[in-house]
């Protein structure tokens, strides 16, 4: 009311007392702005803002600010431009100017629907590309009236096939993040693009004569063909300039291994669909790395057991730290990190890939169980030669990876389940080794040979560079330091210039995915914070294209490459989101063969290091790994990712030094106590997390935390980078861990207070989960012998065991089924739900109090011995019970049943007794204990899904089965006078799920997949003995153990 309904009294009187300035009303403002578009509009607003008429206009029209603004203005002796714009932008947007969305000026092509008519309330989907560590995933961005609100996978893109990972889902939040840098910074002050181009350009012109001597460019891993061409041209024009790369969490060892094995840095990719037996060696290949979404999909398809398909692949996992991949393994063997590598050696010996040096196969192994397992696994792999797959950790030592390449080759897997292709990334002239590249750069900087250092694409070497290089000191010897990134960070603080980067959803560009497929990036929105792309910077500075836009650069690049009618091909590429057939950009398998003796050399190297390991019993190996949620730390400012529980620990807002229960006891480490890690004289303090299933002798600390300058992420968790040196990037043998005795508190979403209530809570929870049959399990053999064994175990009360009359669902009856057999626990569903349903983030302090808001969660249970447990994942959305216990206890009928079987939540009616939540056996209800939704930051309003209510403080909320999508589908079917096509309607969690573990649909209609799943003998309901009649049901987790190992493994 204060904005749209100005009160005349006070302001009118003031205005009358002063000399009347020229009248300016909304019409005039509109008039003046009418001919302007896009960026020009903002410039003219700037111009307008200074005029007295405009101030008066504001005073009269916006009394809400009239009380605030004069004080602010007098304080700064006139109009503070910044403050002024802050105050006015929202009001102007309301006043009908094009303030809320910024459409790009160039034509972009929608994925499914033509953009001629933007129908208010109807989203458009555009194919574009997001990159992680340089590698692309094709996605569809949902755009509501020009605002991207949600990311979905691009079903046509080979790295996605319609699914996404957590990073894709989180991208929209980064896009709108008000903490992104919003202006060019020059020596700590606001600068201008012109001044930057002037200064850097002048410097470059001066250096051009010297062939670009002293010019250095530092980027992350680059797969963009356009940028590759730009860099190539640049290096041709400035032959003495150098391009360096540093991707902190890149595949440094993978490249080195490929170099050793094949003599060139080949890319390795897998086809899980063709593999019948998989051995993962400390590798979380299913949920990490550029191909993970695709791998999950392929793998899941080999594990989908149904009554008419009693076949499944077998997965062995030998690992030191529990991984998502390990949770699905039929046999999981925890071994200390160095022993896993030894296992690879032993396997190579057992398969005759390398000679055992006279000793028998398995003699190198120390662990008795590993000795027994080795021949069995080797035999199984051999029996399935050509359809087997051995996967090494991409962070494992190069020697291990070489051996694994050799094993795959010896088994005939190469070319069938494993492919080596030309590198996807662009390899600079100075070699693929990024560590070496950084070393050179630092050496050059120290020697004073670098005059201009351009750090593009958000690289943050001050935080991520190997600690022994001394990057910070070296950097200060560079004359002109330029940083380009989404955020002002540790590095930008030491730079003369910081240029805000455009987010990928604001950019034109291109990138390759793990298999080489090129997809185009098209902007969904004009840069919100005047960001620039790296492509633009390169074009402006080095190609003398002063007014080049990235659109032109990318288009020009493809103009020469796309065959046939360019316009048509370009449109198709944009529409499809990938350049598939003109020419196909997927890289063909390279017929590379292993260099002779590479495997044997690797084996001897391993034997040597093995002796060292054996000489130090009780030695601790510290693994450094990218964090499952914030990666190398560049994603740390994203609150969705911070609050997304890490799959194994369910930890939020922190990283932790994880150790196994046995080692914790040996080293006297206490859960949630601080400890000091020392490696080679370098020390880091971190709090300990005792993780069941983590092997003795192995500790892990993830990278990406302890940021020093990252807005809200500053100071969260513990910085592991000080331990990370060029000698050891990932595995630090011989680390020492010493308890410090100080307490720390972790905010975990499961078993929040495991420690407070005694260390027994986690095993107790596991036992109880088993006792209550929350996760029903069985083996393939059992299922073959006795297909109905799950059905016979079920305690399903008869439908008439209620006093209420039975309800018949005549029309649609919505239901969901979740296949526990393929759920990896990757948590994409959680964050997809968060994005779709405007779920707020609550922060560490509230998570500590047990108030996280996720509508779907992934429960993790352990069963068996805590040193070697079986680990289960169980996604839990609302069960939409037909006899819902929540409904009968609500005093105001705020939660009630729809005639389609949805347990609806009416926010407006909720008074917040929380009785429904108490009475919900599944505890899926979430309460707004405080005002969690951010309604004060205008830019975050753009992020919200307009089809979903933003909840206020004091109301209950929960999973709705994405009722907005259901209603949309129903409206469409009504308009088009046809039934909802089977399997077309998807919930957000289902759509994001890489393994297709979730299906949703009309259980009254046999055409829907969900109906088939529910008829399967593996189908069961959670706690169905309570007669809640849940609409969400689960398919039991079936394992395919090797009979030769079964006796040894008990129930596994």
């Amino acid at each position, binding site marked *: 009311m204060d904005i749209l309904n100005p009160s005349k009294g006070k302001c009118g009187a003031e205005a009358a007392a002063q000399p009347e300035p020229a009248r300016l009303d909304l019409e005039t403002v509109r008039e003046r702005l009418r001919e302007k578009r896009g960026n020009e509009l903002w410039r003219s607003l700037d111009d307008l803002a200074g005029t007295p008429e405009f101030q008066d206009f504001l005073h009269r029209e916006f009394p809400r600010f009239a009380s605030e603004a004069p004080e602010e203005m007098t304080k700064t002796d006139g109009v503070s431009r910044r403050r002024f714009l802050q105050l006015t932008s929202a009001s102007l947007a309301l006043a009908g100017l094009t303030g809320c969305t910024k459409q790009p000026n160039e034509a972009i092509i929608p994925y499914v629907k033509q953009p001629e008519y933007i129908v208010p309330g109807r989203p458009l989907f555009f194919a574009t590309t997001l990159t992680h560590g340089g590698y692309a995933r094709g996605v569809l961005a949902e755009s509501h009236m020009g605002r991207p609100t949600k990311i979905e996978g691009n079903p046509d893109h080979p790295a996605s096939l319609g699914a996404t990972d957590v990073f894709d889902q989180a991208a929209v939040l980064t896009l709108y993040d008000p903490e992104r840098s919003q202006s060019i910074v020059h020596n700590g002050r606001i600068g201008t693009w012109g001044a930057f181009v002037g200064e850097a350009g002048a410097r470059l012109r001066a250096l051009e004569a010297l062939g670009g001597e002293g010019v250095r460019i530092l980027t992350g891993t680059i797969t963009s063909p356009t940028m590759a061409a730009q860099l190539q041209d640049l290096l041709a024009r400035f032959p003495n300039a150098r391009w360096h790369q540093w991707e902190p969490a890149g595949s440094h060892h993978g490249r080195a291994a490929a170099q050793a094995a094949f003599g060139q840095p080949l890319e390795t990719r897998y086809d899980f669909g063709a593999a019948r037996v998989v051995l993962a060696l400390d590798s979380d290949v299913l949920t990490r790395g550029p191909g993970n979404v695709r791998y999950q999909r392929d793998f899941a398809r080999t594990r989908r057991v149904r009554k008419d398909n009693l076949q499944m692949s077998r997965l062995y996992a030998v690992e030191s730290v529990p991984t998502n991949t390990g949770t699905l393994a039929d046999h999981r063997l925890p071994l200390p990190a160095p022993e896993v590598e030894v296992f690879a050696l032993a396997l190579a010996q057992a398969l005759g890939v390398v000679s055992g040096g006279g000793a028998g196969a398995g003699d190198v192994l120390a662990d008795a169980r590993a000795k027994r397992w080795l021949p069995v696994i080797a035999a199984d792999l051999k029996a399935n030669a050509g359809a087997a797959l051995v996967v090494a950790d991409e962070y494992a030592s190069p020697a291990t990876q070489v051996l694994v390449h050799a094993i795959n080759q010896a088994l005939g897997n190469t070319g069938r389940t494993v492919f080596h292709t030309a590198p996807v990334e662009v390899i600079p002239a100075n070699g693929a080794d990024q560590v070496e590249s950084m070393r050179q750069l630092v050496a050059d900087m120290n020697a004073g040979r670098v005059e201009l250092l351009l750090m593009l694409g958000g690289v943050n070497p001050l935080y991520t560079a190997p600690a022994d290089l001394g990057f910070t000191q070296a950097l200060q010897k560079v004359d002109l330091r330029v940083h380009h990134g989404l955020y002002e960070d540790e590095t930008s603080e030491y730079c003369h210039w910081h240029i805000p980067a455009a987010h990928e959803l604001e950019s034109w560009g291109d990138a390759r995915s793990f298999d080489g497929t090129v997809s185009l990036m098209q902007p969904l929105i004009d840069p919100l914070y005047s960001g620039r792309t790296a492509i633009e910077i390169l074009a402006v500075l080095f190609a003398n294209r002063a007014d080049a836009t990235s659109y032109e650069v990318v288009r020009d690049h493809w103009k020469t490459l796309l065959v046939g009618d360019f316009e048509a091909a370009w449109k198709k590429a944009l529409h499809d989101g990938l350049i598939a057939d003109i020419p196909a950009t997927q890289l063909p398998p390279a017929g590379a063969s292993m260099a002779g003796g590479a495997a044997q050399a690797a084996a001897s190297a391993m034997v040597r290091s093995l002796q060292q390991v054996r000489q130090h019993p009780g030695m601790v190996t510290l693994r450094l790994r990218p964090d499952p949620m914030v990666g190398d730390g560049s994603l740390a400012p994203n609150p969705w990712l911070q609050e997304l529980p890490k799959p194994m620990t369910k930890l939020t807002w922190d990283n932790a030094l994880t150790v196994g229960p046995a080692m914790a006891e040996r080293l006297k480490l206490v859960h949630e106590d601080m400890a000091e890690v020392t490696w080679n004289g370098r020390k880091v303090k971190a709090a300990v997390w005792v993780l069941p299933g983590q092997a003795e002798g192995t500790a892990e600390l993830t990278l990406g935390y302890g940021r020093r300058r990252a807005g809200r992420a500053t100071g969260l968790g513990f910085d592991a980078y000080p331990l990370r040196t060029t000698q050891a990037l990932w595995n630090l043998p011989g680390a020492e861990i010493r308890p410090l005795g100080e307490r720390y508190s972790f905010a975990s979403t499961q078993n*929040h207070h495991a420690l407070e209530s005694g260390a027994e809570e986690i095993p107790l929870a596991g036992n109880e989960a088993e006792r209550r049959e929350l996760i029903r399990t069985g083996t393939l053999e059992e299922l073959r012998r006795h297909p109905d064994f799950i059905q016979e175990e079920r305690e399903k009360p008869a439908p008439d065991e209620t006093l209420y009359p039975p309800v018949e669902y005549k029309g649609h009856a919505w239901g969901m089924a979740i296949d526990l057999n393929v759920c990896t626990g990757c948590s994409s569903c959680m964050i997809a739900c968060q994005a779709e349903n405007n779920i707020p983030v609550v922060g560490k302090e509230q998570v500590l*109090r047990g108030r996280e808001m996720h509508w779907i969660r992934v429960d993790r249970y352990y069963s068996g011995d805590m040193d070697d447990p079986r680990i289960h994942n169980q996604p839990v959305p609302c069960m939409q019970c037909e006899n819902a216990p929540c409904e*009968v206890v609500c005093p105001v009928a705020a939660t*009630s049943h729809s005639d389609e079987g949805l347990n609806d939540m009416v926010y407006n009616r*909720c008074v917040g007794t929380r009785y429904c939540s108490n009475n919900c*056996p599944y505890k899926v209800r979430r309460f707004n204990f405080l005002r969690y939704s951010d309604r004060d930051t205008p830019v975050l309003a753009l992020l919200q899904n307009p089809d979903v209510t933003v909840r206020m*403080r004091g109301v209950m909320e929960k999973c709705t089965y994405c009722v907005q999508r259901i209603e949309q589908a129903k409206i469409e079917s009504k308009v088009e006078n046809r039934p909802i096509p089977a399997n077309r309607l998807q919930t957000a969690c289902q759509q994001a799920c890489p393994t297709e573990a979730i299906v949703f649909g009309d259980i009254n209609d046999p055409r829907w997949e969900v109906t088939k799943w529910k008829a399967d003998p593996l189908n069961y309901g959670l*706690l169905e003995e309570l007669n809640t009649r849940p609409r969400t049901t689960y398919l039991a987790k079936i394992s395919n153990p090797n009979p030769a190992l079964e006796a040894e493994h008990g129930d596994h």
Partner: protein
Amino acid sequence: MATIDPAPGTLPKPFKPPVVAPGHTPGTVTDKISSVVLRRTPKWWYIGFGVSFLILMVFLVSVSWLLLKGIGVWGVNQPVGWGFAIVNFVWWIGIGHAGTLISAILLLLRQEWRTSINRFAEAMTLFAVACAGMYPILHLGRPWLAYWLFPYPNTMGMWPQFRSPLIWDVFAVSTYATVSALFWYVGLIPDLATLRDRSRKRVAKVIYGFFAMGWRGSAAHWHNYETAYLLLAGLATPLVVSVHTVVSFDFAIGIVPGWHATIFPPYFVAGAIYAGFAMVLTLAIPLRAVFGLQDFITMRHLQNMGKVMLATGLIVVYGYTMEFFFAWYSGNHLERFTFLNRITGPYRYHWFALIFCNAVAPQLLWFRRFRTSPFWLFVISIIVSVGMWLERFVIVITSLHRDFLPSSWGMYKGTMWDWGTYIGTIGLFLSLLFLFIRFLPMISIFEMRTIVPGGQQGGEYTDSPGEQA
């Protein structure tokens, strides 16, 4: 029937101490009780009221902060959706029970010893219900919409959801509050008239006179009064049972193991009476000492209340035992786990403390030595009040904190605002109590007159101080 010193040798066995100390006449009774109200305010009252009022201000601050920030300032969470607010609600409601029981049921049963304690027990009920009644509103996520729980014609076209026990609560508690208030007020009318006639200040005369509603003590007045009082007693009697039965439904109707039990209604009612008598003792013992009312609130009263506590306490212990027995006997794993968790889980110390307070300590009341010692009775009554609070804490929190899915288990801890609100309501209770003892006769004058020698059963309005019948 007046109790007089019985002749030696005619003592009933066991010995029953008198309801009123010997030597009192209707005149001395009136003098003694009304003088508490009519003489100058003693200094200690200001101190007592001041401290209570300060505590009440804690309530003001806590509630203001709560309304400003939301329910999140409390410790409630997932999975423990109800915390101190519901614990305190049930606790206060339970405390209120003794008043109604003493007033109504003992009146109907013609237990004349109730006479000297019923007035302040009723007042206590009223104040306890006032304290209790605030919690269900304050604990709402959106307390400003609490009126949606009432069935009133509205533009939304919505009824409340009558299947919810919370709606039953609304009716039960509001009925209880109304009847208790009426009962108390009606009982006060003859005494208000006495105060009107005796007070010397004009203002007091007007105010007491207004509330005495023109009472003149005529036979017709007495007739109507007696009828009304008996009717109200009849109305209030089922409430003693119904209110806490309905409150227990809040839990028993839920499916949470530890809540879902048919024993809850009787067990809650017994617990309420138990807690109520404990609170009456907690208040009566200091009051009689301070005001020198040992003659009216005699050892017989204290002993009787001790006996009631012992009896109801044993019922409560029986309830605990049956809960455990049926958890085992049902063969239901979830039930068994919940009760095992009570005694071995992270809240085991609460449970042990509860057993000590409610089951062990009151066993002292078997012994006359403790039953006749105001000091020990006071100590035991405090222990029982704490125990009953713990009982509600154990029921509400330990049942919720580890229910069906182990993934959702959590812990609950009251925050400073939880404590502030709780202590604040104690401040409210004490403040009201201080106002009550200052401005109203804490013992029913006219009823006392009927039980001293010279008084008449049925009451007769007498005003002159020295008059004896």
